[in-house]
């Protein structure tokens, strides 16, 4: 109540100044009190520890030089030592350790490099990181090794312990008798080191993702893999929507019809109920299947997805099922973008499935041609009247074609499917340029 009124209240002004000073102190001291500084310091020191053998090695060479060993021998040994000492920088295990250390101690997110192989450029960046880590760590360790004992020796000397160690000591104008000043100097060194570690640590945290993260090419590859996975999931989701939506429609319709005819046609009602039961059961099986696929790790999906190079096996399987397949495959099938190759395989597979289902054993011809810019796929089979459109035939054909059309469009390709002169022909053209179509879709 006493001091809360008026602008000229001195205690109020004092409190403002006090607050400002406290805040400034906090900001100034933040790097020294923050846990991350110490964790980053540990990271740097680890680099220093790893640098020790290198320092010893260098010392050995200096010693040899001083002892007057032959320069040729020294040069030879230096070359061998450089290879052996340089190797760890490029090792995969070193990379893994460095990434783990950066994540845990620097507290930064280093994105994984996708895939099994590491590009040479990424390896080189990792080696650079290793070298910088060792040099910076070595420096910090050296500074710590000097500042730490100094500070303690001076403080202890001031308390009268071990004063004799300072006999004849001289730093600029100070000598062994100025223990107060020297203690302060030691402490100042420690504090300064704290700021240096904080600064170096922040720099390391900034550079770690740059030097150890994936290269632009690897990022693109990762994004592509992700896009593939999404497209696959979308396809499955759409299939699920189609098949379950379709089953529910049939069930609803049959139930509605059964209700209309409940009194007048018990036989129809019996059939309708059995259709409802069967459709529900089949839809449930579809649901199980597709949800199972969606739950699986997406990466496994892509890895298992077969490509056009697996075409022979597919055709053999279909032939084993009793369908005559005339296949003609030309061009460098193995050297095309994986996305296109997978889609190509799926198209032939669906084409063959539809052909065997609707043409029931009639010969199918498959034509695959890998050109310089385009992949051409044609699947042709004779149409066998309407015998295929019986009640037992699910309408997979139509749904499959719609899905195929969408995927072809996604890859920037064209597709036609239709009947001509008693022949059913599915014809697809996919550009081999890869990414172009996707970005436009």
């Amino acid at each position, binding site marked *: 109540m006493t001091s809360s009124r008026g602008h000229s209240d001195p205690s109020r002004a004092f409190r403002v100044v006090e607050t400002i000073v406290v805040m400034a102190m906090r900001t100034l001291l933040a790097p020294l009190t923050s846990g991350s500084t110490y964790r980053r310091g540990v990271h740097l020191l680890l680099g220093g520890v790893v640098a020790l053998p290198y320092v010893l090695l260098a010392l050995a060479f200096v010693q040899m030089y001083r002892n007057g060993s032959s320069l040729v021998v020294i040069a030879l040994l230096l070359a061998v030592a450089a290879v052996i000492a340089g190797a760890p920088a490029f090792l995969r295990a070193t990379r893994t350790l460095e990434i783990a250390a950066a994540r845990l101690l620097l507290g930064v997110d280093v994105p994984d490099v996708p895939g099994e192989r590491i590009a040479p450029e990424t390896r080189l960046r990792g080696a650079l990181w290793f070298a910088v880590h060792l040099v910076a760590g070595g420096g910090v360790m050296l500074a710590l090794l000097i500042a730490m004992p100094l500070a303690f020796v001076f403080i202890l000397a001031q308390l009268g312990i071990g004063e004799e160690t300072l006999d004849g000591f001289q730093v600029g104008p100070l000598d062994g008798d100025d223990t107060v000043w020297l203690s302060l100097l030691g402490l100042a060194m420690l504090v300064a080191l704290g700021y240096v570690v904080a600064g170096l640590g922040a720099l390391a945290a900034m550079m770690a993702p740059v030097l150890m993260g994936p290269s632009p090419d690897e990022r693109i590859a990762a994004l592509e893999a992700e896009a593939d996975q999404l497209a696959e999931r979308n396809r499955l989701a759409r299939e699920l929507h189609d098949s379950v*939506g*379709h089953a*529910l*429609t*049939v069930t*609803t*319709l*049959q139930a*509605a*019809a*059964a*209700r*209309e*005819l409940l009194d*007048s*046609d018990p036989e*129809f009602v019996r*059939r*309708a109920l059995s*259709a409802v039961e069967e*459709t529900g059961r089949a839809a449930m099986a579809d649901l199980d299947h597709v949800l199972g696929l969606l739950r699986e790790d997406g990466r496994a999906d892509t890895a298992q997805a077969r490509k056009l190079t697996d075409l022979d096996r597919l055709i053999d399987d279909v032939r084993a099922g009793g369908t005559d397949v005339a296949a003609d495959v030309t061009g460098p099938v193995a050297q095309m973008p994986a996305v296109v190759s997978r889609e190509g395989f799926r198209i032939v597979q669906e084409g063959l499935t539809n052909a065997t289902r*609707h043409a029931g054993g009639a010969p199918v011809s498959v034509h695959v041609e890998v050109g310089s810019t385009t992949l051409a796929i044609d699947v042709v089979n004779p*149409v066998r009247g*309407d015998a295929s*459109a*019986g*009640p037992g035939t699910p*309408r997979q*054909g*139509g*749904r499959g*074609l*719609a899905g195929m059309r969408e995927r072809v469009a996604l890859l920037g390709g064209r597709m036609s499917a*239709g*009947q001509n002169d008693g022949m*059913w022909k599915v014809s697809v053209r996919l550009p081999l340029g890869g990414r172009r179509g996707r970005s436009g879709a």
Partner: protein
Amino acid sequence: MITVAIVDDEELVRTGLRAIIDAQPDLEVVGEAADGAEAVPLVRRLRPDVVLMDVRMPAVDGIQATRHLRSTMDAPPAVLVVTTFENDDYVYEALRAGAGGFLLKRARPAEVAEAVRVVARGDSILFPAALQRLVQTHGGGRPDRRALADAGLTEREEEVLRLMATGLSNAEIAEKLVLGQETVKTHVGNVLAKLGARDRTQAVIAAYESGFIVPAR
């Protein structure tokens, strides 16, 4: 009696629709086909008043079949598109190809019967709200603003077109505008002729697509 043919590649859908339609005293199913290619000769032979047409079918789909029937027959039947999914590109294409309306396969029996009657009469559009949604989703990509400007509709005809889009029949429009039914019929005929539309549904789609009628959001 309104005669009906059912075209759908799935037998369970055909039997369901047949049972529902045959249960109505004024409707009768006279034939079934499993595919668009079979449908054309069947319709030519049986001359039903209404064809219930599935859109997605193997070989010849409902759009092609509809277009073929509407363009090659002297007095083509009204086509009622039946569909599993409401928001379907194919349905919209079928309507543009001359189908008189569309119906969800999951519709209640009474709705199915009423839809058949409405397209058979052909004097009002079916499910105006659903049609509007469909145009909103699928018709945006092809603004054809000139079509209506060039048509040169009179003020009265424009008024009639707006009421057609709300699903009113000729009789209802006559009542609303205080005109004779014959007069309204003449106006409707003029609208269709000026727009080059074969039926009311096509005229209403053109009205939406050209921006003449702005769909309420």
